[in-house]
């Protein structure tokens, strides 16, 4: 009988370790499947990896936008365990607002460099504020009254909000995709590195995203409000007892998520040079996939996940076809949620076991 427990002990531990190993590296392998497959194809067809390189660069800039949106999902989920389904629409409306502000500021592709930079900086701030206040308002109207209700109730209202906001988009710009002025000449070739063409759009996406993510990270890590956020995320009840105003902290979280989504909205308008009321739906789901992939609640994870999904999207758009991209990303979503719900670098949730 002693022997039995002795042998069963390590074997059980080992099986868990094996599962951990398989699920981590299996997922990584799965994520690498597309780049590897098309890398091999490129090498045998062209003898170089230029095409794949271009896909990756495009994916990276997609990923920057997705990362900014994913931050909103991850922050909110981290603090109230709610999938803010309307977050994609907050991004979409940020995009619509940005495009509308082009005209307000009189920006056209002919505007000079200085005017363009100043104008876009102003638009960036305004778009961020629009999305942020919208996100805060959504929380007040649709989620706060349901705090303490069964967990699925706020998710259902979130879905409802998402449809309402989509239709706000429809009323605003109509139901079809709308081209917006290509202010930056986003397709304009900037430099070429190892046969990979880098455009202005690529640089813009990365150049806006990195400082914002750094700012957000340091805010959450260092500021008093950031600490309140983390405390609330850990244990709302204890945070309340410690004198933290939980409602304010939750509003702040929605505010931060909205700010990031607004920035993503402007980048998207500049980079895609088109806006659409439905752009938030798939972008939102991709970004949510990114957040889960990185480990929901984890800021760095959201950025990593955004980049990964962006690259998958970039490769799929160019190689398999636009129409298939959602299906492919959603297959990844299902696989991650089922086999590794804690994400690539997340920890297991509170209730282990």
């Amino acid at each position, binding site marked *: 009988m002693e022997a039995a427990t002795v042998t069963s002990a390590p074997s059980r531990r080992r099986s868990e370790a094996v599962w951990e190993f398989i699920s981590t590296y299996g997922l990584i392998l799965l994520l690498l499947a597309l780049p590897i497959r098309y890398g091999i194809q490129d090498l045998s067809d062209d003898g170089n990896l230029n095409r794949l390189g271009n896909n990756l660069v495009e994916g990276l800039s997609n990923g920057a936008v997705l990362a900014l949106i994913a931050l909103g999902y991850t922050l909110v989920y981290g603090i109230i*365990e*709610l*999938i803010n389904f309307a977050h994609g629409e907050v991004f979409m409306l940020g995009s619509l607002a940005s495009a509308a502000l082009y005209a307000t500021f009189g920006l056209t592709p002919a505007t000079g460099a200085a005017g363009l930079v100043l104008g876009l900086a102003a638009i960036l701030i305004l778009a961020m504020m629009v999305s942020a206040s919208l996100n805060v308002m959504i929380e007040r*109207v*649709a989620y706060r*009254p*349901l705090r303490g*209700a069964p*967990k*699925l*109730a*706020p*998710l*259902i*209202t979130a*879905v*409802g*909000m*998402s*449809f*309402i906001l*989509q*239709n*706000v988009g*429809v*009323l605003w710009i109509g*139901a079809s995709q709308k081209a917006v002025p290509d202010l930056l000449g986003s397709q304009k070739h900037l430099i070429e590195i190892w046969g990979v063409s880098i455009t202005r759009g690529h640089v813009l996406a990365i150049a806006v995203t990195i400082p914002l993510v750094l700012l957000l990270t340091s805010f959450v890590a260092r500021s008093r409000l950031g600490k309140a956020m983390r405390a609330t995320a850990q244990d709302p009840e204890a945070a309340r007892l410690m004198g933290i105003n939980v409602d304010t902290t939750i509003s702040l979280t929605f505010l931060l998520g909205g700010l990031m989504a607004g920035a993503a909205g402007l980048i998207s308008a500049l980079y895609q040079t088109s806006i659409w009321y439905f752009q938030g*739906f798939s972008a939102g*789901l991709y970004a*949510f996939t990114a957040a889960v992939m990185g480990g929901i609640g984890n800021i760095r994870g959201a950025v990593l996940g955004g980049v990964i999904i962006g690259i998958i999207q970039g490769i799929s758009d160019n190689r398999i*076809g636009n*129409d*298939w991209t*959602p*299906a492919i990303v*959603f*297959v990844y*979503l*299902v696989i991650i*949620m*089922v086999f590794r*719900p804690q994400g690539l670098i997340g920890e297991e949730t509170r209730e282990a076991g």
Partner: protein
Amino acid sequence: MSRVAQLRRDPRAGVAIAVLGGIAVALFPLFRPPLDGLTNDAILALAFVVMALGLNLVVGFAGLLDLGYVAFYAFGLMVTGWWASDFFSSVNDEKGIHVGTSDFVSSLPGIHLNLLLLIIGAIVICATAGILIGLPTLRLRGDYIAIVTLAFGEIISRVFANGDEVTIFGDNKLSNGRQSISPIDQINLPIFGEFDSATDLRPYYWAVLALVLVVLFVDFRLRDSRLGRAWIALREDEVAAASMGVPLVKTKLLSYAAGGAFGGISGAFLGPFFSSINANQFQFGFSIFILAMVILGGLGSVWGVVLGAVSLSFVNYWLIPDVLDGEFVRGKLDSLGLEFSFSEVTFGVFGFLLVLMMVLRPEGLLPERRRQIELTSGEGPLDDTKAAVFEARA
């Protein structure tokens, strides 16, 4: 007690109202023209009652939030596209395969099966799909279940929308992609013969009414059974249910399978009624359309869901396009200089309803009996449902 209250307390009054209502529902198309807009909308409403009852099994009874119900709509319709049209025109040396079809259809190439076989096929396919979609969600928490089912719904819709690029069984396409598959065979029933939706809609109405009655019967039987109690126990407290001997995996999968089967039944009816199938119909919005019916009526409440499905169908197919976007309102709005059509914001209306219901009246318009009766004393025999409701209202 007032006379009205007395009347409402009397169960016979309820029975009388139910009988009269039933007769009115069954006979109203006789008083309408054969090709009537109202009959058309009523047929759709009843088909969606079947769908909503199916989703209610999963979301209302078992408490599993399924946001991908469009998958079963897609499979149900595709079953008719595959097996009741000339889609597989090359089978059997282009002579086709025919089972229980009318003389005319029997001369066409492709696979052509009778409605009853289509329904059985759709039940089998959708129940299997339900189990396959349910399997990965078994260990997940509620909100993750919602997203995974949503993802499956989108994957399936996408695959059908791009199905012209997918080949199965040799060089057959999976679907016509964004091109329609049409025409779908008209319904052909023993005794009643072949329907013709171009000249008379009423047979379709009575057929779908019969389907609704069968599905309601099954729904009530399931609710008041060992399985139904297990679903509700699961919804209330998974841990306690498991500890009382309810097998979680089997019980959850049965709810997905049964819910999917209902969706398939409705789809197999709607294919012939629409007479053409287009993968563009398979959108996430459809899942929300059906979910809104369930929530509006009352999660878990059978009659509530019927009410929710009928009212939202009429909002969608009559109130918005015919009334709000009709000439009268249109004219008023135009004179105010407002240029907008309500049809564009249909889903915003459903979204608004979802938010409104969850915030103000989460139990729905006609709440489940369990949530409705606050106090009843004693307990009657097995079928005390009606009495209890009347007591509660009195």
